């Protein structure tokens, strides 16, 4: 990142570009992102040189006006000998521009090829179907044994060192899936199936955000990406594959009854219970997620209360309606949700 900072526009401001983050294109935490970052650095250096050349010429032209200039009136054509030098310079400059562009185009093409080869290099180990909705993400993990399949929402987990094939679909409008630390973006288009391959190389937590304007709450459509070691990833898979445990405390049982008999189960699913609707996020392992409402709030008792009591206050326009729970009902439902570990 710092190399880029020095080259992009030659401003010390850019040294700040070195600061890391969970949503930055210089993260290099995936094979694809690293390839693109190298290309980006190359482009910054080459374009930076061209910018420096133009500025040097401009400043030279500016300073030169103090020098010797015949006080002639210009004439048409102006083919005075002094033009000859400028003409040669124009040809040289054009040749340099063409040469630079050709070099960059070839570099870009080669990077694009190596990005495409990650698809060709063997069968991806992880296969995820990611579906965009206004304004949340549904992830379906697919396995050769379909009984292992499960659904989750607004998060994905990936193991390091393997290619993950992510199939992208959209239920309503166009969205765009983008984990800048791992790779570039890919649109999710209704009526089409697209895909992207991620090959994470570094354990960490990253943030993805919808990158195509998708309506009122486009700003609140994030996705948590957790890259685990293969062992941690296997543990996470095993946990996700299990159905939800039955509630035990009286309060949680009361919440469970409310959930199953009232509005909640019309949209949400909890594996192992009668709730099986697919309109809203699957809540089977809600408490294993870091955020709720597609990255709008951190997950926890307080935010869950706020979200369930008044979804429209937290995320205006979201499809989760205001239900009007009384205080007891609210506590009960949250108590039940907190059992969904």
């Amino acid at each position: 990142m710092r190399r880029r900072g020095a080259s992009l526009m030659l401003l010390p401001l850019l040294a700040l570009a070195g600061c890391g983050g969970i949503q930055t294109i210089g993260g290099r935490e995936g094979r694809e992102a690293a390839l693109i970052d190298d290309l980006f650095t190359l482009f910054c250096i080459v374009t930076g040189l061209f910018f420096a050349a133009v500025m040097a010429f401009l400043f030279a032209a500016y300073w030169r006006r103090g020098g010797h200039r015949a006080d002639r009136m210009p004439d048409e054509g102006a083919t005075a000998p002094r033009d000859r030098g400028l003409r040669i310079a124009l040809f040289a400059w054009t040749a340099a521009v063409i040469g630079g562009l050709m070099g960059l185009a070839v570099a870009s093409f080669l990077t694009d090829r190596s990005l495409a080869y990650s698809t060709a290099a063997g069968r991806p180990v992880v296969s995820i179907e990611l579906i965009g909705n206004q304004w949340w993400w549904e992830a379906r993990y697919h396995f050769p044994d379909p009984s292992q399949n499960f659904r989750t929402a607004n998060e994905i987990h990936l193991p390091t060192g393997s290619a993950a094939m992510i199939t992208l679909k959209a239920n309503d409008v166009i969205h765009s899936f983008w984990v800048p630390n791992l790779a570039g973006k890919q649109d999710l288009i209704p009526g089409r199936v697209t895909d992207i391959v991620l090959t994470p190389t570094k354990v960490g937590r990253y943030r993805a955000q919808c990158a195509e304007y998708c309506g009122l709450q486009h700003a609140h459509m994030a996705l948590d990406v957790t890259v685990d070691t293969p062992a941690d990833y296997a543990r996470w898979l095993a946990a996700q594959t299990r159905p939800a445990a039955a509630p035990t405390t009286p309060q949680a049982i009361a919440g469970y009854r409310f959930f199953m008999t009232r509005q909640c189960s019309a949209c949400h699913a909890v594996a192992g219970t009668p709730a099986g609707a697919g309109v809203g996020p699957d809540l089977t392992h809600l408490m294993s997620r870091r955020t709720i409402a597609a990255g709008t709030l951190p997950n926890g008792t307080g935010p869950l209360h706020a979200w369930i009591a008044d979804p429209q206050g937290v995320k205006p326009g979201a499809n989760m309606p205001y239900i009007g729970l009384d205080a007891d009902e609210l506590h009960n439902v949250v108590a039940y949700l907190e059992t969904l570990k």
Partner: protein
Amino acid sequence: MTVLSGRDLPRDGEDLQGAALHGRLERTWGDAPGLWGWLTTTDHKRIGKRYIVTALVFLMLGGLLALAMRLQLARPESGLISPDRYNQLFTMHGTTMMFLFAVPVMEAMAIYLVPLMIGTRNISFPRLNAFSYYMYLAGGTLLWVAFVLNIGPDAGWFAYVPLSGPEFSPGKRTDIWAQMITFTEVAALAVAVELVATILKQRAPGMTLARMPLFVWGVLVTAFMVIFSMPSVALASGMLIADRLVGTQFYNQYEHGDPLLWQHLFWFFGHPEVYIIFVPGAGFVSQITETFCRRPVFAYPAMVLALVTIGLLAFGVWVHHMFATGLPRMGYSFYTAATMAVAIPSGIQIFCWIATIWDGRPRFQVPLLYVVAFIVTFVIGGLSGVMQASVPIDLQVHDTYFIVAHFHYVLIGGAVFPLLGAITYWFPKITGRMMGEGLGKTSFWMIFLGFQVAFFPMHLLGMWGMPRRVYTYPTGMGWDEMNMLATLGSFVVALAVLLFVVNAVHSLLRGAVAGPNPWDAPTLEWATPSPPPQYNFAHIPVVASRTPLWDNRHHLPVVTGLRVDDRELLLTTVMEARPDLREASPLPSIWPLWAAISTTCLFISSIFTPWAVLVGAFPVAAALTAWFWPKSPPSPEPVIE
């Protein structure tokens, strides 16, 4: 001196010149006094001024929207503006700037300047010109009234389906947006046709294509781009309206329509649109550089070829807006190459402008300062554009603030800076008074530096992962400082624009009287008084070089013999500009206004019922019939002897 002779009709010439000629031409070319004259005029200068002022008003309005957005984004998780309002704001900002400011202002400058620069008395099809202005005004008013009533569009200026389709944008917001497109399309296409006809057929004798000022070349290229690109968006928005209002399924993937069809059609227009804005800007830069460096622009043929090349390449790059949609990878390479190739003619032009400064005797007055600001800013925007031409890089920066930074560098740097320079440069021609230099320099430096502070940080925000079109962003992403900086910069720009306006108004009232050619400029518009009389030139000038006013300092040769009792234009041949025909120029008429009013009624009511198209066609047809009704026998002899 060429003399156009004829029968015994009053003509300009040896017997009729000076004050007597002025009186005759004033009577023939003048408008009726008062409001009636204002409404019926067909004078390209009056309509051009109206167009320019209206477009600048839309620039201010669009700028206010930008300030509101910057206030909302100054702090993370700010609750200043609701998401619904914010989405309307950025949709209105983009739509206003692209459709109501940038393209119209360039065409407006051309409407005013081109007939003067090529030495003719009026634009071709001047009634169509009046009609075009009223349509543009109606379209802009429709959009802004809707916004004030809280039914402003909210699907983005690009209005991607299905978000803008009937299912996800119920209500009238998107219909109003799409119909506003229709208005501006009609207006822009009309002006483009007028400009092509004017430039190709009405140039002063001797002004061959190779002697045309570079601004006129830019306008010619732009007008052709408008003619070839605008039908694409008219088709797209027409299909969108049909999908929304009468149940067609062009974009419905469940009925074998395709959402990507919209993107292809929209960007087939949308990318040439960018060059439609930039190419006239490049024309301003050429004229200013020439005048203030007291030297013809270096390598004129290369400059012309560069403009034409940009115009052609503009139609081969639209898919670079769609690199993330999953089209075939191999096909993308073509668009990468085509997009990068745009840097070649642009690089040649940049070189030639700097070479002109290098070899000239530059006076760094306000217009030339804007040229320097243009070069610095536009080169940064162009180079970040080269970066985005690369598919892998674009997949990272697409739809982030990096792109927001890029296109503001290109559009503000490439078009608005030259425009501000051009306004300062031609202000004395249009108003007869000079703009104040001191206030001009102050506002220049504030705009230039404020712009960099406002937009440079956006490159970083994009690289740090901030997507576009978000009404807010969470804390802790590292975006807070740069957003605050951008907001501060935007307010510096706003203050500077205010200063620019104050300077313009003050200069209009109290500025130094300019005289015909205050900058010692070489092109024909400076050969006539400031402001020009309604007939532009007492005698049509004859041109023998690219810089006629420098080469004929005392006696500009003229051609005489045009009738002074009738509005008569001299038409010349397309390539060599040899005198060809005499052509009557239409008289003032109220019917273009009525045609615009009836078309406006048709367009607006069609938002509410498709029957309006049928019923509304009758008043439109009536107005057009009256407009074209022959009122006098044709001029007796359109012959040059």
